[in-house]
């Protein structure tokens, strides 16, 4: 249903409609993300399905916040993409539009280090509170422990 997509893109400055393997996407500037989400909700996308982030290490802007929405009444999906700069990654919170974004934003903050302005309680959710670092970033290693394999010369 591209008229609702067009309506949403019209409500947001700097929105670019795209198509990713048959799925509708709208790229928005990060400052407009909450506006775009509100526009989507007004245009029939009742439910926030997923809110996640990607770390494109060598790209500027470095991070990307991805919002997957679905319209239950119309049966269509929409994806909002917002590029977030790596130096001071802050994004306006979506909890005012979709309350369910709460835990998703905390997870992104925890694992990727992107700060959501206006979130009521932005604390770590999956890792212990005193953890240092954001493991899902591409410059963090996976943290593997060296494993020894007994040589095959040993006869069991």
């Amino acid at each position, binding site marked *: 249903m591209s008229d609702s997509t067009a309506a949403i893109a019209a409500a947001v400055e700097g929105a670019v409609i795209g198509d990713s393997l048959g799925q509708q996407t709208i790229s928005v500037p990060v400052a407009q993300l909450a506006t775009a989400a509100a526009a989507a909700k007004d245009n029939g996308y009742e439910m926030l399905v997923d809110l996640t982030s990607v770390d494109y290490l060598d790209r500027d802007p470095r991070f990307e916040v991805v919002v997957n929405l679905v319209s239950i009444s119309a049966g269509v999906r929409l994806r909002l993409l917002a590029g977030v700069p790596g130096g001071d990654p802050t994004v306006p919170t979506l909890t005012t539009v979709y309350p369910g974004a709460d835990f998703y934003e905390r997870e992104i903050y925890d694992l990727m280090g992107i700060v959501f302005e206006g979130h009521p309680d932005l604390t770590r959710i*999956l*890792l*212990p509170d005193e953890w240092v670092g954001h493991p899902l970033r591409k410059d*963090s290693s*996976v943290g*593997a*422990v060296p494993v020894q394999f007994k040589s095959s010369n040993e006869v069991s």
Partner: protein
Amino acid sequence: MVRLAEPPGFLTTTLDRAAAWAQTKSMWPAVFGLACCAIEMMATGAAHNDMGRFGMEVFRASPRQADLMIVAGRVSQKMAPVLRQVYDQMAEPKWVISMGACASSGGMFNNYALVQGVDQIVPVDVYVPGCPPGPQSLLHGILTLHAKVLEAAK
């Protein structure tokens, strides 16, 4: 194990062996199912592979009443102090079975989030391999533990 003040003699060794026999026949596990292995642990307690025939179908929620902690599943960094606290709260004598690959060694998840082997936190008596170990493997591990307890009392 029963610790007695007198030096070992005929009566006390028999008492030791009797105590060990009693302990193996009703070794109550504590509820410590974490992940997929917990499902297989519950399957071991269900009707098809019955743990109740070994006196073990009662999973005690309170660690004070439990003898055996079957660490069933992957132990994350956040869960590790909780694991230790529950282990500390169990009363002697107590045993630990590390069930599955993740509890024994970190399993296939060699990364930042998991403790690579629960023996870094608690002393383990029997390791049961598998991902997840089927009920028969877990029962074999439990019976190995019983044999170990009986052996130690001889």
